[in-house]
């Protein structure tokens, strides 16, 4: 590390700021930062020749002017001094041309100035041209972008997530996280995606870099070693890159949570070896969702709604088929996963696969699912469900259309591979659609948004379908058909100072807490999804559930309801009105005065 610049970078990037949250400092190597400074050096090196040419031309021109004999106004011999000569050369070279100063030139001088004009103009043009060419050069601009990005990441003063891979999943996730007010840093190997990132209007400033996510140096620049980095999301569409990013994060920052995606169980096992990353397998998750959708349609509806994020409309509730067998077309990784899940759920499954991937399975038929004779062979008339699960969107659409025609009552699930096919799949009538990118985005969102939501979603399926139906009913009654924002409140001395005394001395039912401060007969338009008390969690508690100090509440509702609830939690007078229907003066002086005169707060009729 001989170069002071190198030391400088390392020192900056390993974060020697004061007052950091973590005491331990992480030394993460930064290969690319040195590359960036190398480019700057290259630029300086390339400017050597133009600058020397310019200096030489100026020197010769100025020297010549001082040596050539001239005349002053009276015709006496006179020689120009260095300052006059430099002055004349400066304005001549820059094509300003103030004229012949201080005295009119002799012919000797004019001849010399003529030569100098051409020389200096060429010199200037060469130097400026070289500089402009360098500025426009790709590698130089990349180096500048890298430095800009590095500076932005370094200056992040709040917790942020490192998103490696800004594909469809990354974009969906970034939008949801941005709506939650979270900060994040993005790296993607495709420059087009990073351009999209800058065009997308996020609330927060999102630093983005075109870089390979598998390179630990790039991850380090993107904030892997930053004290405020709170997690790494390796969600590129390349399993190898995800694995590499997972490895880098686990080895260099073992304290950080890592969430990654893959569709291959082998890759999942390889990822699990490094630390304990959360691996999201969209096929696996879709299989689980499909099972839930068949067993408990209302639970599935609630799950997908909450996972999809604020602003999303209530999804349609599916109508699961009762009996009969299932037909799965395509026996790749997805087909295997779904077949396994359906069989675990107790359904008979017939596999249709053109290749020999499924030849060991007794219920496999070789053929293509959209061919009429294959459809007859699988007894499509009496089938309960149909899965179009090949890795080709055109084939899947054909399968869906053929299945529809053969048996309109079937439960039809399909897999969408390319984002561009979304409108086509939306147009055909489907009971379940797998979009791997969305499954991953929703899953990661649920894990990251609040730990309470994740807890809710994990424990919710056990509550049964009727319970889920009542929760959906409650949500739609109070908050409408579009999901409102989710937020968390802890009934602690800090977040709910007004409630502290009350919670310690008396029983506070949730229903009373959620009365409106404007009119306590009205209920706030918010639903408590979960009350977490230590290790136990109460899902969608009823109105007379008593809350206690330090309970954590997960609420969903309009922003207005959030503000009103905050006033109940923060302002003593509002709390008195909401909980006890007492009107108390809100200012300290009036409270003192009324206490002195009335002795006790007046009670309204």
């Amino acid at each position, binding site marked *: 590390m*001989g*170069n*002071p*610049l190198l030391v400088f970078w390392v020192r900056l990037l390993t974060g020697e700021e004061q007052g950091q949250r973590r005491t331990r400092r992480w030394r993460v190597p930064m290969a690319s930062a040195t590359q960036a400074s*190398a480019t700057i*050096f*290259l*630029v*300086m*090196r*390339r*400017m*050597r020749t133009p*600058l*020397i040419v310019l*200096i*030489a031309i100026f*020197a010769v021109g*100025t*020297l010549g002017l*001082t040596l050539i004999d001239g005349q002053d106004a009276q015709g006496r011999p006179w020689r120009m*001094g*260095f*300052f006059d000569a430099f002055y004349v050369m400066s304005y001549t070279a820059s094509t300003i041309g103030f004229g012949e100063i201080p005295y009119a030139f002799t012919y000797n001088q004019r001849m010399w100035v003529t030569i100098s004009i051409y020389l200096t103009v060429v010199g200037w043009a060469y130097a400026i041209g070289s500089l402009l060419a360098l500025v426009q050069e790709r590698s130089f601009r990349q180096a500048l972008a890298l430095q800009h990005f590095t500076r932005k990441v370094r200056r992040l003063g709040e917790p942020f997530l490192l998103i490696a891979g800004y594909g469809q999943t990354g974009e969906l996730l970034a939008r949801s996280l941005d709506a939650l007010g979270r900060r994040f840093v993005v790296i993607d190997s495709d420059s087009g995606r990073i351009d999209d990132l800058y065009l997308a209007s996020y609330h927060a400033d999102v630093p983005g870099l075109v870089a390979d996510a598998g390179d630990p140096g790039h991850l380090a620049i993107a904030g892997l070693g930053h004290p405020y980095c709170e997690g790494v999301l390796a969600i590129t569409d390349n399993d190898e890159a995800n694995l590499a990013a997972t490895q880098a994060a686990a080895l260099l920052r073992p304290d950080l949570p890592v969430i990654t995606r893959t569709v291959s169980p082998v890759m999942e096992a390889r990822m699990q070896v490094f630390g304990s990353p959360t691996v999201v397998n969209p096929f696996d998750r879709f299989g689980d969702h499909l099972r839930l959708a068949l067993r408990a349609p209302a639970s599935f509806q609630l799950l997908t709604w909450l996972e999809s994020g604020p602003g999303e409309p209530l999804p349609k509730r599916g109508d699961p088929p009762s009996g009969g067998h299932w037909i799965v077309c395509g026996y790749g990784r997805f087909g295997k996963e779904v077949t396994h899940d359906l069989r675990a759920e107790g359904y008979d499954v017939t596999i249709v696969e053109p290749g020999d991937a499924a030849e060991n399975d007794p219920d496999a038929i070789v053929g293509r699912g959209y061919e009429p004779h294959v459809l007859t062979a699988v007894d499509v008339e009496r089938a309960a469900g149909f899965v179009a699960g090949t890795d080709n969107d055109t084939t899947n659409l054909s399968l869906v259309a053929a299945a529809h025609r053969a048996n309109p009552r079937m439960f039809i699930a399909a897999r969408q591979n390319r984002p561009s096919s979304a409108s086509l799949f939306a147009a055909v009538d489907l009971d379940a659609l797998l979009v791997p990118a969305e499954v991953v985005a929703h899953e990661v969102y649920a894990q990251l948004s609040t730990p309470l939501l994740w807890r809710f979603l994990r424990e919710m399926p056990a509550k049964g379908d009727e319970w889920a139906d009542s929760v959906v009913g409650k949500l739609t009654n109070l908050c409408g058909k579009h999901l409102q924002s989710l937020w968390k409140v802890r009934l602690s001395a800090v977040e709910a100072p007004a409630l502290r005394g009350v919670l310690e001395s008396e029983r506070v039912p949730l229903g009373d807490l959620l009365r409106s401060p404007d009119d306590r007969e009205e209920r706030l338009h918010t639903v408590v999804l979960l009350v977490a008390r230590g290790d136990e969690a109460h899902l969608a508690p009823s109105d007379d559930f008593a809350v206690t100090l330090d309970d954590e509440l997960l609420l969903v509702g309009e922003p207005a309801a959030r503000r009103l609830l905050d006033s109940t939690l923060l302002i003593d007078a509002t709390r008195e009105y909401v909980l006890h229907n007492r009107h108390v003066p809100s200012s300290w002086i009036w409270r003192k005065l009324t206490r002195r005169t009335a002795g006790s707060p007046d009670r309204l009729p």
Partner: protein
Amino acid sequence: MNLEKVVFGFFVLLAATLNFGFFIGDLGDAELHNSYELYAAVVVNLIATVLKFGDRTQIGAVHLATSLVADLQLIAAALVWGYASYVGDGLTREATASVVSLSGGALLANIVSVVLLVVETVSFHRR
């Protein structure tokens, strides 16, 4: 033989020698200090500075720093000289003394530069 090293060494040495040539002599006597020599020292120093651009080693960084110091001192000397002869009351003894002492500072920086050059050469042979 590396032509780049020849050019580099040439300019570094020439900057130092020209500077020395201007500096030597009675501090206040304008006749002993040729203005053309100062001019040449400024130009050669500027070229030497540009030649030192873009060297990534530690010794290269110090090289650049010494050259920048020498430039600063010599340009200051030239400015004082220009001010004295065009604006002030000519090259008095005081003015000449300050021009020459400024160039003396530059000479020190140039000597450091030459020492660095020698050190670099010697350590290169050892490797």
